[in-house]
């Protein structure tokens, strides 16, 4: 493993890699600071730029964006009480209170330092989990991969978002989108409607830009979303070392919940930061300060959401199942460079995986260095009038989509998926489930067909192998869980309702 780390470091510490990671982090901080532009959107917008790069460098740059965006999100949370990213929603409570008290520098400093601690801890946790898990994944054959893909889809469709039917529809739409292009076995084109441009399939990068970024811009235009400007003074007096030391318990709590969320699908740091905030309050010696400008109230959620930047990569790198929006975009980035995540990635291209590990560490250190330098540009960007910002992002989206293949097809894909994504957002469908279906569709279909090829057409192959059988059972359970839970709640509620009716009648 040490040799692999040396290999990774050789890539990650090359001047071009360092420069791209630095640019990625800076872009992430700026994007994260803009309300409505989450880390994943900032990453999606950058996808076309990574096309010509060394794959390892491209992934480091994208991961750098995610890392930077988490801190960027806390800048607006603290200064204008509007979270830049969902992960920093709870930071608003105490961060903004600190700003109003004239201690904005302390709040920003705590967010930066504990965020870096969280990010670095996250990388170590990532390595500790991902490397052994990738060895387990080596035992996976086609039936297990098929079952794992189905399990991932069931998990995202039923747990992310509230509506099981709409989650299922979203996932199936994504899977259908993935069938466009050349059939992996027979080589015949499917659903290309005679277009030569669609023979290669729908470009994942274009689909991501449409579903994540363009749909959000459409949503902001239609709903008239606006935010405060940063006015008045903010201080840059940083927290002292003693003050930081007092935050160790809150930071540790953030690390624990960030790790747990990273392993589970769908949250992207938002849930972990909420739970970490509540737990930090419970364990704090001064819980009464929470809500009135507690530094612990900034430290816990900001640690948690930065831990997630690394731990969310565990399911992606080991099994090829992205658990969050940003992991899905990283997967699209890998596909753009012909890389398939999973154990083979660790074996065949260790420089990419270990380069990403080292790159994440570097990105966190860059964030620490850039954090305060980027403050002024971030505020300037937040203060730009909205129409200019929206127009600029639309221009970037159009040219970026064109540049993926030097063709207009991707521009159309971005527009159509953007419109579909907007309608999905508006009517309660599950965008992440659709994206997951889209990026996993190929893998699921190929492994289904390969399994049946090996078993000579016997479908029992999925149920006689213990891992695939348990994964499929888990998938069914996961998908049915919301229904079972509702039935149980209804049963529990009905005797009580009956009792009330009885009393009323009596």
């Amino acid at each position, binding site marked *: 493993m040490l040799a692999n780390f040396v290999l990774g470091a050789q890539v990650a510490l090359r001047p071009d890699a360092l420069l791209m990671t630095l640019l990625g982090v800076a872009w992430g901080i700026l994007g994260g600071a803009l309300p409505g532009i989450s880390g994943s959107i900032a990453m999606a917008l950058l996808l076309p*730029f990574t*096309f*010509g790069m060394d794959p390892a460098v491209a992934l480091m740059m994208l991961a750098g964006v995610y890392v930077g965006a988490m801190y960027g999100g806390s800048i607006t949370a603290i200064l204008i009480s509007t979270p830049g990213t969902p992960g920093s929603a709870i930071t608003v409570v105490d961060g903004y209170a600190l700003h109003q008290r004239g201690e904005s520098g302390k709040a920003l400093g705590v967010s930066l330092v504990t965020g870096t601690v969280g990010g670095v801890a996250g990388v170590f946790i990532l390595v500790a989990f991902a490397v052994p898990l990738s060895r387990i994944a080596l035992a996976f054959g086609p039936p297990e991969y098929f079952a794992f893909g189905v399990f991932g889809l069931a998990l995202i469709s039923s747990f992310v978002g509230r*509506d099981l*039917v*709409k989650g*299922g*529809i979203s996932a*199936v*739409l994504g*899977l*259908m989108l993935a*069938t466009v292009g050349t*059939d992996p*076995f*027979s*080589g*015949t*084109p*499917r*659903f290309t409607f005679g277009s030569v441009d669609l023979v290669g399939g729908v470009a994942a990068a274009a689909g991501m830009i449409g579903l994540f970024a363009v749909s959000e811009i*459409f*949503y902001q*235009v*239609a*709903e*008239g979303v606006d935010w405060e400007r940063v006015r008045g003074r903010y201080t840059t007096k940083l927290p002292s070392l003693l003050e930081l030391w007092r935050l160790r318990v809150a930071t540790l709590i953030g690390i624990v919940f960030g790790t747990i969320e990273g392993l589970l699908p769908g949250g992207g740091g938002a849930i972990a930061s909420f739970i970490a905030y509540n737990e930090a309050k419970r364990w704090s010696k001064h819980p009464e300060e929470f809500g009135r400008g507690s530094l612990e109230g900034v430290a816990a959620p900001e640690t948690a959401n930065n831990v997630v930047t690394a731990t969310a990569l565990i399911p992606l790198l080991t099994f090829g199942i992205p658990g969050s929006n940003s992991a899905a975009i990283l997967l699209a980035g890998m596909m753009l460079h012909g890389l398939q995540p999973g154990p083979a990635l660790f074996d065949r291209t260790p420089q990419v995986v270990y380069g990403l590990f080292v790159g994440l560490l570097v990105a966190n250190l860059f964030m620490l260095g850039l954090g305060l330098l980027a403050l002024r540009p971030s505020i300037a960007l937040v203060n730009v*009038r*909205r*129409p*200019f910002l*929206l*127009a*600029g992002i*639309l*221009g*970037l989206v*159009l*040219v*970026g989509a*064109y*540049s993926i293949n*030097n063709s*207009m097809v991707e*521009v*159309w894909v971005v*527009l159509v998926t953007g*419109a579909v994504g*907007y309608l999905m957002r*508006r*009517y*309660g469908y599950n965008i992440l489930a659709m994206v997951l279906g889209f990026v996993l569709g190929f893998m699921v*279909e190929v492994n*289904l*067909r*390969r399994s*049946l*090829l090996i078993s000579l*057409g016997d479908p029992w192959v999925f149920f006689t192998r213990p891992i695939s059988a348990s994964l499929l059972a888990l998938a069914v359970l996961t998908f049915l869980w919301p229904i079972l839970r509702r039935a149980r709640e209804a049963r529990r509620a009905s005797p009580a309702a009956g009792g009330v009716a009885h009393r009323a009648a009596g």
Partner: protein
Amino acid sequence: MRRADLVAAVVLLALAALYYQQSFFVVRGFATDRLGPTFVPRLLAGALAVLALALLSRALGGRSDRTPPPGARTGLLLTIFVLLVGYAVVMPKLGFLLVTPAFLAAVLAALGIREPLPVVGAAVGMTAVLYFAFAKLLGVLLPPGPLGRV
């Protein structure tokens, strides 16, 4: 959301039917596996139809969520969308450098910026930055149009 769910269910059913019908146009090659290239698509069409029927029965049974109020600026969104489609149609013919500033200026005007100087300045400035980043730094061959390569 009852009406929206009803509309969505009908559209999704139609999509499932169209997708199923289109699967008959897929040529089954010689070198293929047992399931062939149409098995998974037809399975998906079936799954989509079942889910759309579930949505339909829920909507007809009045068990849908409340419809969110329409966005305050749906008309504006349509304008922006039409501008985007127009850009995608015209840009390959007239070229990046001519169409992009016009598009950006129109978007800015639609979004309520009416002072000519900021609109023109921003539209030209953004085009220049995008051109430099993509055409010069990344070497993307943007459609030249009548202006030719600059």
